[in-house]
């Protein structure tokens, strides 16, 4: 978990965009991606309940083809866009070692 936190300052912008899109779609929000700043927490403007969080995580797992590790299954881990993107970058890189990471 520490390894991706080190890269949290520079996660892939593409990954952050995909996360924002998944967030909006999975929660069926009438919002655009631009409504969510890269610097802000995802739940800053939208109240999340327990099932919404589960929907979001399930949708992320489907989108990125990974399964969240148990220590990442906390509300704190999934609300911060940058950290979440860094984690997913790290997980997808681990799954596909040859894949280039767009910045």
């Amino acid at each position, binding site marked *: 978990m520490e390894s991706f936190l080190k890269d949290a300052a520079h996660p892939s912008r593409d990954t952050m965009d995909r996360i924002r899109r998944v967030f909006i779609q999975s*929660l*069926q*929000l*009438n*919002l655009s991606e631009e*409504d969510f700043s890269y610097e802000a927490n995802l*739940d800053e*403007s*939208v*109240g*999340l*309940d*327990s*099932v*919404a*969080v*589960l*929907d979001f*995580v*399930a949708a992320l*797992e489907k989108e990125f083809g990974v*399964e969240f590790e*148990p220590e990442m*299954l*906390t*509300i*704190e881990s*999934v609300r911060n866009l940058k950290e979440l993107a860094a984690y997913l970058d790290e997980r997808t890189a681990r799954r596909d070692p040859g894949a280039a990471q767009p910045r």
Partner: protein
Amino acid sequence: MECRQKGYTVVVEATPGMTTPEASRAPFPASTAASPPWVTANDLLWLLYLYPFRLVARLLPRWILYGIGRISNPMVQFHARRTKAKAAPWIAQACHTTPARARQIASQSLSNTMFRTLDALLLARPSSDKMLCCTAMDGFQNLESALARGKGVILLTGHFCANRNALRYLAAKGYRALSVHNRVPPNHAEGRFGRLFLKPRAVALQKSANSDQVYVEDPGCSLSILRRLRAGGLVCIQIDGREGPTVPEQLFLGLPWRIRSGIFELIRVSDCAVVPMLSLGHSSGFQIRFDPMLAIHPASSREAFVAANLPQFLTVVENQIVENPQEWRLWNHF
């Protein structure tokens, strides 16, 4: 910002708390008074329970505590007479029994609920695990074979009086189960004093009786459950909470019932096993039964998954209740 969120919330237990005759006067389902009084009789009873009685109970042996319970029982039964009178026709209809037997069941259920409340005081003691006396455990192989799948197990049950004893006993044996609750159980008999001052204390006592629990009000609740399931662990779900405007009303024990559907999404995401669990009795002697794993029917959508699986979940719990109606503690709750 305008947003539209799906209209359902996760799981599970509507922990009923403090029922008095005042609750029985509320329409069914009970409605919340717009402006409750400052203090009710219910508040005073809970004040006694949570402070002097709880402190004294730390020192008393179980047989004295139970003796006090038996002495208090006629008073409790009298206090709840309207609630019981209201529950009896429902019990008679749901359990296909006579009105006289239904009244008896209502009284026994109330009495068992009271002993459950006393057991909570025992479970809050540091050495409480030694006081739990499990007299029989049936179908343990069903639990072990479900755990062997490695994807976690949901223990499916209803609001039975012995659940907390069973979970604490299982935890002491190395089978910890995460229990899911409402932090603020609905109680239509409480006043403002109860709501502001006593309820947090009651929640703290509940937590000390079983610390391995999560609250549905917490946004991280479903992730905590998923984390436990993915670690191959146990989660206990009481599916018969009546608080979810989430799926179309189902008939449960002959009444329209709103079941929260979050559990089904967790099952879909985690692919965990579901094992019906039934626990009966008091801390001085209780039994636990595990039935074979339920066959989960896959479906393409969330709604189809709920539709495919909810009926068998409800049937399982209905059968548990009808077979042991005196152990179910929601008869007198509404």
